[in-house]
């Protein structure tokens, strides 16, 4: 039969014989939750970031706003180079990262066991949850003046604020992950002859581990916010301090350079967590 143009059900004209398969595919709707190849994902992500960047470039170079308020990308780059060249960028980063790692590690080291015991024991939950909930609703940053009186601008003060900001959220999220461990897993553990302690360690913890790592990743994001706040208010070093001192000279390029650098560091930590997750839990097929 001659390849005459035909019209499909929806009325769109199309060539009949040569490529019917691709025509069918083109019309198929994207399925919800459909997975896509990694390079596809990366491409979309890069485009999305590029659009954001171009928008910034456009707004700042076309004089739509005063560059004092929104410096151009070139100015920010220049500020970054200056900041980097005298070594302060490295020092600021080091101080901030040490603080966040310490605060986060202390919070997590306590939150993980406490959260697990709250999850498996109603008695522990009853004892711990009410005070945790109570403190959780007190804004962590409101403790800054108090901690400054207690500890001055000592490193301890930063760690304490990070702890207050992170621990009380973290412990409840971990408890929830432990609560949803399927009961059959626990009962199976008992029928295998495990003691309560073995069940907690070998079954409950392992079953909740992916959720716990996810919680840590999310809490790390909050930790960054609290770190910067605490450095803005009372510190002599660190990324927040650098932003704060730039503000005194209306040095908006440095402020933006600091903010973007914090974003990049945060993203790096996030990536590290995700990489660890995929490595440690290969059975969680869907990953992210």
């Amino acid at each position: 039969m001659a390849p005459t143009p035909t019209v499909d059900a929806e009325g769109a004209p199309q060539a009949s014989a040569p490529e019917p398969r691709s025509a069918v595919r083109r019309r198929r709707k994207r399925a919800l939750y459909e997975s896509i190849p990694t390079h596809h994902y990366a491409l979309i992500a890069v485009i999305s970031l590029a659009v954001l960047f171009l928008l910034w470039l456009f707004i700042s170079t076309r004089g739509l706003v005063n560059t004092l308020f929104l410096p151009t990308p070139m100015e920010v780059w220049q500020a970054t180079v200056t900041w980097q060249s005298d070594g302060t960028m490295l020092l600021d980063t080091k101080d901030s990262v040490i603080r966040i790692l310490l605060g986060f590690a202390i919070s997590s080291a306590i939150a993980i066991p406490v959260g697990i015991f709250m999850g498996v024991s109603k008695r522990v939950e009853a004892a711990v949850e009410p005070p945790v909930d109570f403190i959780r609703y007190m804004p962590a940053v409101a403790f800054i003046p108090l901690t400054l009186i207690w500890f001055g601008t000592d490193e301890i003060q930063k760690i304490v604020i990070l702890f207050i900001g992170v621990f009380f959220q973290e412990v409840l999220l971990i408890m929830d992950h432990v609560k949803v461990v399927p009961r059959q897993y626990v009962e199976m553990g008992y029928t295998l002859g495990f003691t309560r302690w073995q069940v907690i360690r070998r079954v409950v913890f392992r079953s909740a581990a992916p959720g716990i790592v996810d919680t840590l990743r999310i809490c790390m994001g909050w930790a960054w916010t609290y770190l910067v706040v605490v450095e803005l208010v009372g510190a002599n070093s660190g990324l927040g301090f650098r932003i704060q001192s730039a503000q005194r000279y209306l040095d908006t390029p440095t402020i933006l350079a600091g903010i973007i650098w914090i974003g990049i560091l945060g993203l790096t930590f996030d990536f590290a967590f995700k990489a660890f997750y995929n490595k440690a839990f290969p059975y969680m097929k869907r990953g992210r």
Partner: protein
Amino acid sequence: MADLLHIDHVSKSFEQRKGDAHLVLDSIDLTLGEGEFVSLLGASGCGKSTLLRIVAGLEVPSDGVVWLDGHEIVAPGRDRGMVFQQYTLYPWLTAKRNVEFALVDTPKKERPEIAAEYLEVVGLSDFADHFPSQLSGGMQQRVAIARALALRPRVMLMDEPFGALDAQTRGLMQELLLSIWERDRLSVLFVTHDVEESLILSDRVCVLGARPGRVREIVNVDLPRPRVYELRDSAEFITLKHHVHSLIHDEAVKATGLGNVLARGGYS
């Protein structure tokens, strides 16, 4: 005769709201001999799982005692190998590691060998390194069976292990279980609501009535072994099947409270 397992007048009631107790099992008395295969058969909700969980030590009877080798069962233990109704493989362990996981009191060096042996028994040697999420439902239940077998338990407790499988796979799994049972001289207490399944597998079928669960009748299944698929067409099998079906039907009507509705429709 000294029985391996004796469910000695076990009753169980669950606390409803405000001290209102709901009797689920009423004075169940049943024995299981060494090397015997006994099924618990009954309609959904009649308390089969509850009874098995009591034997497993996961649930405490309200009244009565379960004896295993003359000792009262007070807690779960490795002398009873449990296969649950739902799939209970640990998703973070491969098939092989799931079986090894059960072998806590075996020296570490010997575990892989034993695990490999039992995966071989259930025909899954090629899937030893697969995670449960990469296995079909039937395969997962086979690993679960291998895990229970690896404990070398005194008795296997199986709660509708093939309930979620299609008829074809189910039949094959029954054959597999029978071959293992004959090979290892296992003692099995097997829960099912499938009449044919109970007859094909068991030496005796304990038919449970519903609301509360009582032993309605214990049916001896004197069919020749090894049992082949064609047995299902034999006259003895069909007679037994009809008998058990009618027992179950009466109980199901009672349990669902559908008696009046069905009578109105003129059915049966």
